[in-house]
Every structure is written in C-alpha cells, then in structure tokens.
C-alpha cells in the first residue's frame, strides 16, 4: 500500500480511535475499569501508530492524484480496518465469548445492521453498550465522510472517497467543495441526533438510553440497551419519536440541506421521496389492516407504524415480533427488506431510487408496445434523459440478489433452514438486522457457526458499501495474491 493511502487509512482508524474517548469517560464514571482499559489500550496503540506515520518522512507521492481504483480499495480497506479495530475493545472487555463474535458485533455496528450475537445486553457494561450504539452512528453517515470533513488529507480525491462510501446510484456534491459537503452532511446528522436525544429524554427515557437510541436510530442500526429493544420501554411517545426519526434517517440527507437553503420546490419534485412516501404509506395501511384482525386498530397502527418504519429504514428495532403477525403483514414486511431507504441516507437495502428507475422504465416499455413510434424519456426529479440509470440499477439489483443467493446457500450449508438462510442473507446485505425463522426479532446471531459469521461480516460490509467497493477490494486482493503466487 502506498504512503498516502496509509496516511488516509491511519486518519480513518485514528478518527474511530478518538471517538473511544466517550465510552472511556462513561467507563471511568461508572468504575468499569476493565472496560476502561479495553478502550484505552487500542486507542493509545492506534494513536501512537498514527503519530509515527504522520511524523515520518513525507514522500513526494503523497500529492499524487488519487485514482478511482485507489479510492475503492482504500474505502473497502478502511471499512475492513475499522470493523476489526472496533472489535478489539469489545473483545478486550471480556463480554464476548470470542474474537469472531466481537468482530461480528463490530461489523454489524459500523454497517448499521444491528444484528447482535448477544441475547442479554442489559447486563453489559454501559460503556460497551454506548460503544455498540456509537458504531452505528459513526458508520451511518460514514467515517470516511467524517475524515474528509475534518482532516485536510491530500486535498484531492476526497470526492472519490466519499463516492465509494455513500449510497445510491448517483453521487453528487451538495456544495461546491467536497469538504464543505462532508461538513454539511455531518452537521445535519449531528443536529438530528441531538434533537432526537432531547425528544427521547422528554418522552421519558434516561439521558444515557436517549443518547444510545438516538445513535442507533440516526445510523439506522438497531442496537438497543434493552433485550426487548424499544418494546422494553412500553412508552408510546418513545415509539413515536423513534418512528419519526427512523423515517428521517432513511431520507436523502441532501434534502435537508436543500430545505435549509430554502430550495423547497426541489424537495417537492424529488421522485425518490415521493415514491418512498407512497411505499411507506401503502405498506403501513396494509399492515395496519392485516394486524387489526388480531388486535385493536389503535394498537395495530402503533405497532405497524413502528415496524414498517424500522424495516424500511433498515434499522431493525422492534416493539413486537412481526414473525407472529398475520401472513399478509409478514409478506409486506418481507417485501420491505428488498426495498430499503433512500439514496444518500444512512439506511441500507437496494434503495428506493433504483426501484423507481426500473418501475419508470417498465412503464415506458409497456407504453412503447402500444405506441411504437413514441419517444420516451425517463425523468427523475423532473430531469429528463435519465435512462443511463436503468442499466446501473438493473446490474446492481442483479449483483445484490446474486450475493443474497450465495449468502443464503452458505447459510444452508451451515445448517440454517431455507427461510432463515434466505431472509438472513437479505437482512445482512440490506443491513437490516432481524430476519425471519430462527433469526427473527426475538432471536440473535450468537448460535450460528463461526465461519458463517465471517461470511456475514463480508456480506454486511458489501451491503453497506453498495457491493462494488467490496467487490473491487476482493478482486484486487485476489489479483495480487495470484500475481504473487505465480512469481
């Protein structure tokens, strides 16, 4: 790896290491000294390494232009590195039975999946719980985006790094300069987190739980400080606040920037937002009506709204076990696993914009059958000529489903039943968290074999980085290995 790449990588890991201060402070306050050391040791080690690297000779190559390939490899490598680094304090704290479990928990956290290997999280040290939720928050908006915002690395290629990390088929800067874009996104993210923390506190949660759940919600992760997730609080106001913020976190953050800039007409014209709203409201109506067969309408609305928002935003919080719902409600929830949130959000999944593009193309194709001479153009957000997104969306969905099939196959090889294997695969790649069958909202991932946990780690990272970044990283690694072995 070249010198500037190492510098960027060290900045990313250093940034994550710096964030360990918060759980360290909690550990010190609560007298959790083993946890304190578990956080302090990797932080100190990484900072020493970063310092040594940044003080060492500065080669001329650090001003070199970052190529597209560098950016993909670097972001893929950085995410793998922070997954491993985040697992170290969890492992050292002694609450995870093995490093594999700590790694699964860490990757699940950073990729905002929220699938836990632990059945009992209420007895974990508070600092460990805080760190679990913080990984969601850091991974949600993206650590590389944060680094680009705060560290003036190289000065070039920052946008390529952000493109390799953010979600959606099209990446654009919301401001002229990439560092300002990154700062704007993180500022909005921070403001929303603070707002949710305050509202959850007002709704009756303790400050600590409010902060942890705000981190989890805005990152659309799903880790909770309670075994029964949000259901443990039995508080309708808490559920309302979290439902609203899950939806907000699964919208494109560029929309908030436009709202703050007064460009409200652009927001009203946003195709993805409209389709997201349509899908959300339709799913909510169907699930509410289906659940009303087994419970009062008001209760049905309450649980359905929370769960629809939770799955569509790929958060994975739970207030009730949807695997015990009416089959119609269950099938709607399963469909939502495939949709995901909006591009440019912290949510996972295939993303609404890709389905929107394909649906519009389908309508064009059908109309072309009836009117063979008519000229059609695909409009997105009122802009014409967006046909170029169709092959991108189609190939992404093909890659997504292919990876899901391979992952489901590995799940089946590890002994999972077909429902669990397939829904688990979709849940991992979509960064949702809970699945169906043996991996439903009431279960956890602790019992699956270690080899499958490693594969799931890859699937979660691939899903978070929208497949291509990890595919390229693996491709480059394989090519290097084959080149080395042939020498």
């Amino acid at each position, binding site marked *: 790896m070249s010198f500037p790449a190492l510098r960027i990588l060290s900045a990313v890991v250093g940034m994550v290491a710096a964030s360990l201060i918060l759980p360290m402070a909690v550990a010190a306050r609560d007298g959790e000294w083993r946890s304190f050391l578990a956080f302090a040791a990797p932080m100190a080690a990484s900072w020493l390494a970063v310092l040594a690297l940044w003080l060492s000779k500065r080669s001329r190559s650090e001003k070199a232009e970052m190529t597209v390939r560098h950016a993909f490899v670097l972001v893929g490598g950085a995410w793998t590195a922070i997954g491993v680094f985040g697992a170290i304090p969890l492992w050292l704290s002694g609450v995870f039975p093995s490093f594999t479990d700590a790694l699964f928990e860490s990757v699940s956290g950073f990729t905002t999946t929220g699938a836990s290997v632990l059945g009992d999280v209420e007895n974990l040290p508070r600092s460990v719980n805080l760190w679990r939720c913080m990984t969601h928050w850091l991974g949600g908006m993206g650590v590389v985006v944060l680094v680009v915002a705060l560290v003036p690395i190289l000065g070039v290629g920052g946008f390529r790094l952000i493109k390799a990390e953010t979600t959606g088929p099209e990446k654009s800067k919301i401001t002229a300069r990439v560092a300002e874009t990154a700062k704007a996104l993180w500022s909005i993210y921070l403001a929303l987190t603070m707002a949710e923390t305050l509202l959850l506190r007002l709704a009756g949660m303790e400050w600590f739980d409010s902060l942890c759940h705000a981190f989890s919600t805005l990152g659309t992760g799903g880790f909770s400080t309670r075994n029964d997730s949000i259901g443990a609080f039995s508080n309708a106001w808490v559920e309302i606040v979290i439902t609203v913020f899950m939806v907000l976190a699964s919208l494109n953050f560029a929309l908030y920037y436009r709202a703050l800039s007064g460009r409200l007409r652009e927001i009203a014209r946003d195709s993805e937002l409209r389709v997201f709203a349509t899908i959300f409201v339709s799913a909510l109506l169907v699930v509410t009506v289906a659940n009303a067969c087994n419970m009062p309408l008001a209760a049905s609305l309450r649980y359905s709204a929370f769960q629809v928002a939770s799955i569509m935003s790929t958060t994975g919080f739970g207030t009730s076990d949807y695997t015990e719902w009416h089959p119609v409600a269950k099938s709607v929830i399963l469909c939502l696993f495939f949709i995901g949130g909006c591009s440019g959000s912290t949510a996972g999944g295939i993303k609404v914009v890709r389905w929107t593009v394909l649906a519009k193309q389908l309508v064009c194709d059908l109309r072309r059958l009836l009117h063979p001479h008519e000229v*059609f153009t695909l409009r997105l957000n009122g802009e*014409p000529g967006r046909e170029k997104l169709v092959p991108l969306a189609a190939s992404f969905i093909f890659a997504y489903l292919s990876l899901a099939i391979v992952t489901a196959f590995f799940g089946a090889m590890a002994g999972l039943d077909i429902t669990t294997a397939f829904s688990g695969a979709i849940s991992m790649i979509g960064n949702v968290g809970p699945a169906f069958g043996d991996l439903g909202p009431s279960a956890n991932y602790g019992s699956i074999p270690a080899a499958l946990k490693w594969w799931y780690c890859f699937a979660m990272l691939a899903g978070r980085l929208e497949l291509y970044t990890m595919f390229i990283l693996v491709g480059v690694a394989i090519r290097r290995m084959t080149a080395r072995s042939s020498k």
Partner: protein
Amino acid sequence: MDFTKKRTIIVGAGFTGIQLARNLVAEGGDVTLIDNDAEKVSHSRNLLDCAVMQAEGNSLKTLEDAGIASAGALVTLTEDDETNMITCSLVEATHPGVLKIARVRNAAYYLSGPSGGLPIPGIDHTVNPDVEAADAICRAISHGAGGNVIELGGGFGIVSLSIAEGSALAGLRLRDLRTIPDWRSLVAYAESADGASLPSGETMLPAGGRVGVVCSIADIPQVMRLAAAGDGEPLSRVVVFGAGRVGALVVDRLCSARQANAGTGVNEILLVDSNEELCREAAERNADIRVMCAEITDEDFMQEERISECDLLVAASGNCDRNLVVSSYLKSRGVRRSIALTESSELDDVGRKLGVDVAVPLRDAVVDSIMSHLRGRNVRAVHTVCNRLFEIVECDVAAGSRVADKPLREISRPGEYLLLLIRHAGEEVFELPGGDTTVEAGARVVLVVRAGDSRIIRLFGGKA
C-alpha cells in the same frame, strides 16, 4: 429619423436579404447587398436594381468599401448568428451612429421583449424569424385557426380570413355591414379574383375572397362566425409536424399557455418528426406532450395514433413545401383545421387552394420587423398583408407633421391609405375613428397603405 432615406448595407443575400433589399429599392432606397457566395451574388444582381458586392461581409474593410461611413443602417442576415452579431459589434466600435440590426436564430442569444428582441450592447435590434413565426402560429391557434391574426395592442387586432360560400358576409357591400347587429369592425383591405384594393363603401365582399378586418380581440370570434371561417369548435387535440426551431417554439408556447390555464382549449399535443435527435430533444424538453418519431404520412402510424381524428395540424417543419402538402393531405383525411408554415406570403394562394386554413410566412415577418426599425422611431410596427400588396403600419403622429391636429375628413386620401385605428395621446386603448376624429400629435395611428408607399408614413411620422 427615417433610415430608409440613407444607405442601407445588407450582409447576407439569402431569401430574407433579397426580399428586404427589394422592399427598400421599391421605396427608392440606396441599398448595398454583400455576400461571399458567387451564386447568390449573381442571382441578386439579376433580381435587384442595387449595388451587390461579392466579399466577406464581416470584414470592416469590405463594409467601408460599401460605404458604411455614410450609411444609415447595417442589417446582418447571414446564416451564422455569431457572424451577424460580431459584424454589428465591429461597426458599433467604428461607426456608432449606424443603426445595427442582426438576425439571431439561436434562442440562447435572443432576448425576447414585449415587441420583438431586446437590444444587445452593440446591436440596436435583433430579429428572430422562428420566434415571429411561432408567435403568429400561436395567435392563429388561440383564435381557432380560422385566419391569420395580427395583434395591435390596446385590445385590437387585424384578422385576415376567407369569406366562405353562403356565409353572412358573402355578397355584402361594405356599407351594408352596418346592418349586421353588433358590428363594430372595419374592413382594412379586400381581395377578390379581380385583385386587391383599399375598400370603399361600394366594395363588394365576394364569396371565396379574402378580407382583413380590424376589430377588437373580443370580436374576432364574431367576425370569423360571420365569414364562416373556422367552425367555432375547440381545438383539443393538436398535432405539430416538425420538431425543428419553429415547431419546438410552438409546442413550448402551447404548453406554457396550457400551464398558465390561458384557455386555449388544447388538451393533447402530439409532436411528430422523423429526425430521432430532434424528437429526443423535444421529449426531454417537454414533459406534457407526446413526441413521435415517424413519417407523419405513414399509413400505419396515422392509424396507430389516430392522426386523422386530430382537431388541428400545425405543419411547421423546415421544409415549407412539404408543410403545404402534409397540411392538405391530412385535411383530406379528416383533420379539422390546418396551419402551415410557408416560405413567404407568395405561397398563400397555393396554400388556400390546397385547403390550408392558415398559412404563416416565415420570412415576411422578419422583413416586416426590419422595415419597422428602418423607418425610424415613429414607426412602431409594419405588417405586410395581402400578398405584399399592402402594409399595416403602426406609427406615432409626429409633432409638426402635416396631418397633426386636423380632423380625419380633411386629411383622408381615398385609395391611398385608410386610417384604421387611433389611440389618442395619453390613452391606453385604440378606437375606430370617425370623420370628425382629430389626429393630434403624439397620437398612435394604425394605417393601411400600399406597400412601398413611404410618402404616407412620412406624412404621419415625419415633419412637414
């Protein structure tokens, strides 16, 4: 100042350049026409009694050889917008007193104002034939495609229409028009098989002839109904043939009018062209229309899209002859009304004989627009009508003019001109004048005069 009294240099000897030169020469003007194409120069020399130079018109030396120092106006009409604009800018730098008019066809360079193009620094006036033609087509559509409509401002317009056999106007003498209830209009000119004339009370309105009627915009439907021009039915389904400049502008204007709920009654717009690139651009530009890439006369296509059931065809392709043929053919197949873009008003007769309801000449509007600028500040607009036999001139009465402050009956010259409308100084709306109406200085008048008779315009717009 009347610029036609001084030398006019025209760069570009295309159709418009030759037509403009012909008009100016007919008025006794001093014209120098410049083009670098030997064939065009030779053709112009055969047609025109004026100086024609074969040289690069954008060269300052050429312009100086042509006498730019003593010229009143420079008109640039080459095919290239940039050449037209830069030539004007060059002359602005060396001879700022010369009036500079440039033809600009690229919409990005053309700043549309309330009465034509806005001036660009270095260029006194810009003219855009496509915009003028598209506006004329849209005016005709907004009045039911029964005839050409010229809007004069102040709530009045001139509608040029054919008198249908058996209509209320057919066979009437002008003096009998007063017997028609609520008739508040004036006939500006009349055209029959025997020729065209400035009308008098004895003029007969024959069936099949054409008349130009001055009336308030609100009265246009009544006039059309009396002449049985148009059927009064709304034009709901419109097919536009040609996605080039004019077709695209027509579609844009129809869409804007529909969005502004301007009551055009147009519900569905189909744009048809065989050029894939133009179709794609049109489809991207307008979300509210359907764009078809096809030969409009293809039988399968016509059936698929029920073209013959359309209410109106606007043939606005770049091939003006084809526009006439397509209009005629589709009317024969059942399309109710048709508007065709033609090269010049000389083809109006052909169009009418082919059954086209409204023919909009592409070049004439530009020549009219340039002529209005050349005739000085008092002349606000010139519209050539009736196969270029007459001109409708909108001008301000100059202080000290020979007609100023005299009643109309004292200044009338039967057979030479007619005063159609007058807007008294300080007032907003035009009115139809009577014999006692006084034409005071500062009033705006609308006259119909014989084409090329600049004496009448000087009578009103110039000093005694």
